[in-house]
């Protein structure tokens, strides 16, 4: 094992605002990040960043935010999110983000649980969500709105405009000095922020993470992918920053590596932003990679015969190259074949979505389907899978180092951390920089971290050489009435590999056979429908259409062909509506993870229908009468 970098210990003693101050002193004129406003990428230097954070911190202090207070931030990934978060941390207060898609009751739950005194809203949309709680949030003192453009007519006594607060906080040039003074008073062992877990079972829990541990933990990513520190890299920020992974990318990694984040005009404009920025490093969740891949595939499917032939030729050249690379048997002509394939089809394809300059793409946050990973690698994108948890405070537990790793594992364990498998296969992890504990919930903390300091991930894993392979969440295993234990996520991931399936949940616990409920991908399915002259008025009509059922059935058959008999899906139903996390009681978390139990309750009729045997009984009964009469 190689020696641990001294940087870990260094970072453990620091805070993120302190690092901003350091950068503002050492390289004041270098670009910290770019953020698009009205068509232009506004460049912020480290000095600008320090000034912005310092002034915002002063403004928040004037609101009464002090050491140890909790401040909530709700909104999409924007420059202001990062600045507010850093300002809160500079004051020694504890920041936490709320998912922009969280429903009113989730907002209220997290606000009450954290006991936040200030709520910072990106715009009017989030004010509505917080005001819906009325006076029930007794600890809430101020609501601050960053973009006040649609708040005409709002005159709640707690509501304040960020612009007014900043105007009263002194000149922008004085920000850096103010930040230096404030940052010096906070130590690396103080708590920095809370990240709420997504809550697929029960209420979300707030994981409290301290400054130094988070910085040192996030440095595992830089340590594992040295290119991040060696060179300056462009990346696009679009994942919600309230998630630990989103925070790593937008706020923490830029402080400890050569990563320069780019914020788009709006997260909805992601594709445009990607094309304009042409990131060299991409951090993403698997869902985006699946979505992009299916859009490209649908586009290729509808192209002219000459262009289709070019793509097909490129695939034929590139598939064996990829296979040989995974097997470690690359030949001398492989680079040539790969560059021909890239030139005739893949490079122009990737250019359309701005991924042609990506040197490193890291997918984390959920399981990356093997097929998806393989496809991107064939196309020439170095897509690596990483595995981490909120509870590891921003650190990856393991990641494929690449380049072009064989899909199907989550790679090797990062340096400085220990991993072992419990008797039941559960992955246990121990390291210096795990989270401090759940906020106001010591019982839950002791359930996760045992006496020896091992953190229980709840994921079942196995070793494949020195690579970790995740099998499933421990509690999600299905035991059929025939007694077979089946991992649903393997099957679901394979289903999600289809361009037409957005979400799939496999059911079969205590049942005779497996079934699935499917949410169709509206974009690709509606494309398909248009190409095949099927008229529809909306999602529900499309979901109920017989031809679409046929398409999905074909996709399921494809998956079934690769599965053992007991694992095969015997019946399926298409959800009549899109899953929307913003709706109350919807069976998905704001990160669009399925809440299995709720899903089973919510679509009980649909599911029961698939195990329906009343028809058989009716037939038997009818026949029985006839037989009986005879």
């Amino acid at each position, binding site marked *: 094992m190689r020696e641990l970098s001294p940087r870990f210990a260094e970072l453990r003693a620091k805070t993120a605002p302190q690092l901003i101050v350091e950068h503002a002193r050492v390289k004041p004129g270098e670009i910290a990040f770019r953020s698009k406003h009205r068509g232009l990428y506004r460049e912020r230097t480290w000095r600008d960043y320090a000034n912005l954070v310092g002034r915002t911190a002063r403004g928040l202090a004037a609101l009464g935010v002090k050491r140890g207070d909790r401040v909530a931030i709700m909104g999409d990934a924007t420059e202001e999110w990062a600045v507010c978060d850093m300002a809160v941390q500079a004051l020694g207060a504890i920041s936490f983000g709320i998912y922009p898609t969280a429903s009113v009751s989730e907002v209220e739950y997290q606000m009450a649980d954290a006991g936040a005194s200030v709520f910072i809203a990106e715009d009017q949309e989030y004010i509505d969500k917080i005001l819906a709680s009325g006076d029930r949030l007794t600890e809430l003192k101020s609501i601050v709105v960053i973009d006040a453009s649609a708040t005409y007519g709002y005159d709640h006594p707690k509501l304040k405009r960020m612009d007014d607060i900043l105007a009263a906080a002194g000149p922008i040039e004085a920000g850096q000095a103010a930040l230096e003074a404030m940052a010096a008073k906070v130590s690396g062992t103080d708590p920095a922020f809370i990240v709420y877990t997504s809550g697929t079972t029960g209420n979300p829990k707030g994981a409290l993470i301290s400054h130094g541990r988070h910085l040192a933990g996030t440095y595992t990513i830089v340590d594992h992918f040295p290119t991040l520190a060696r060179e300056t890299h462009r990346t696009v920020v679009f994942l919600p920053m309230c998630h630990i992974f989103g925070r790593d990318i937008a706020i923490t990694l830029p402080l400890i590596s050569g990563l320069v984040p780019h914020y788009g005009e709006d997260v909805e404009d992601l594709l445009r932003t990607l094309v304009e920025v042409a990131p060299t490093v991409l951090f993403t969740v698997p869902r985006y990679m699946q979505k992009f891949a299916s859009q490209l595939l649908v586009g290729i499917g509808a192209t002219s015969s000459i262009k289709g032939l070019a793509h097909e030729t490129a695939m034929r050249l590139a598939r064996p190259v990829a296979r040989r690379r995974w097997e470690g048997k690359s030949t001398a002509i492989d680079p040539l074949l790969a560059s021909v394939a890239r030139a005739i089809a893949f490079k*122009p394809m990737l250019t359309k*979505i701005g991924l042609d300059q990506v040197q490193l793409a890291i997918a984390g946050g959920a399981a990356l389907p093997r097929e998806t990973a393989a496809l991107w690698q064939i196309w020439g994108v170095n897509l690596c899978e990483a595995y981490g948890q909120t509870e590891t405070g921003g650190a990856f537990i393991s990641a494929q180092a690449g380049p072009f790793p064989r899909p199907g594992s989550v790679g090797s364990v990062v340096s400085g951390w220990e991993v072992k498998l419990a008797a039941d296969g559960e992955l246990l992890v121990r390291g210096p920089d795990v989270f401090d504990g759940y906020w106001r919930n010591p019982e839950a903390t002791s359930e996760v971290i045992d006496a020896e300091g091992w953190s229980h991930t709840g994921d079942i894993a196995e070793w494949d050489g020195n690579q970790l392979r995740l099998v499933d969440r421990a509690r999600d295993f299905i035991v059929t009435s025939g007694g077979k234990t089946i991992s649903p996520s393997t099957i679901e991931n394979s289903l999600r590999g289809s361009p037409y399936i957005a979400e799939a949940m496999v059911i079969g616990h205590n049942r005779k056979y497996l079934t699935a409920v499917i949410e169709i991908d509206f974009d690709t399915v509606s494309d398909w429908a248009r190409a095949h002259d099927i008229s529809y008025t909306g999602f529900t009509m499309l979901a109920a259409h017989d031809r679409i059922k046929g398409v999905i059935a074909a996709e399921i058959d494809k998956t079934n062909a690769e599965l053992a008999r007991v694992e095969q899906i015997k019946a399926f139903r298409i959800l009549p509506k899109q899953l929307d996390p913003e709706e109350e009681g919807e069976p998905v978390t704001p990160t669009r993870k399925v809440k299995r139990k709720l899903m089973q309750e919510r679509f009980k009729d649909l599911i029961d229908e698939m195990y329906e045997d009343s028809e058989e009984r009716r037939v038997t009964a009818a026949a029985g009468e006839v037989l009986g009469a005879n």
Partner: protein
Amino acid sequence: MSRHPPRASGYFRTSYAQDHALIQTRLEWLATAALAVALCGVPLIASPFLLDLATQVLLAIVGALALALLTGYAGQISLGHAGLLAAGAFTVGILFKEFNAPFWISLPAAAVTGAALGVVFGLPSLRLRGLYLAVSTLALHFVVVYLGGEYESKRGFSTGIMIDPPSLLGVSITSGRAWYLVMLGAAVVALLLAANILRSHTGRAWRAVHANETVAGALGINVAAAKLGAFVITSSMTAVAGGLFAYHRGFVSVEAFSLYLSIQYIAMIIIGGMGSLLGAVLGAIFVTLFPYAIEALVGMLPGSQRYAGSLFAVNYAAFGVVMILFLIFEPLGLVGIWRRLQSFFLLWPFKQRPVGGGRK
């Protein structure tokens, strides 16, 4: 100017100047440099006949760009283009005959005449639209041509006005090569002028007026000023082109400025593609070379001597047919064909944009 989306990824702009730059990518720089070298190299290799053709094309480009700005962008129809060319040519001719004025006086004078006429041409546009405006500009065409004819006959130049070649830095411009370079310069200046107008406030105001006058007015654009400005600027450009035409020919006569000339210029912007500077350039090339192409084709027929007399009629007819074909099959003009060709490669390996249109 409506630019295509970037041809490659990785173009984030940090200032509006970058966003407006005429030449943005390294490929565009290379292409521009190569084109410049090629255009400057033409006189060294082309025959006198081809060089004369090229000179005619370049002159036509100046006039076509002016009309493209007025009709294609500002949306004001004009049938008076030949009248404006005549005004420029006669200004040069009269100043030469009466005052022996050098070109550096007479060409600016032509520009001023054009601008003044632009005001006159433009005034009806404040009240009239579409066909009625076209007819009013047509009336002005006849007024200008009538005045020119009167001058010719009253002063005794009934066969036309002879003009000496202009001299630049003591060198008289007579050779085909020299004229080619002069016209090349004029065309480049006209193109840069047009491109710059279009990426400035003026050009955006013109397009807004074209799209919807009421909305443009509501956005704070002075519609009357924008329309008059469009007439003044483009008329001035056209009159300068007329002046250059007079110098190049060395001869001015009303016969050269028939209504057919106006129609030719309109054909240039229709065949080239409305609302595109590239279209105006392509249209000018096409329309100028078309009669020569027809002549060459007829010459290849067996027994071509017999048709020689009807060549002019064939030309007219063929020209009409081509216009109709373009209007029916390629309303976007030559530039439409060019764009389709371009997007075939830009979209590779897709047929349509694969992403971006999808709903969330």
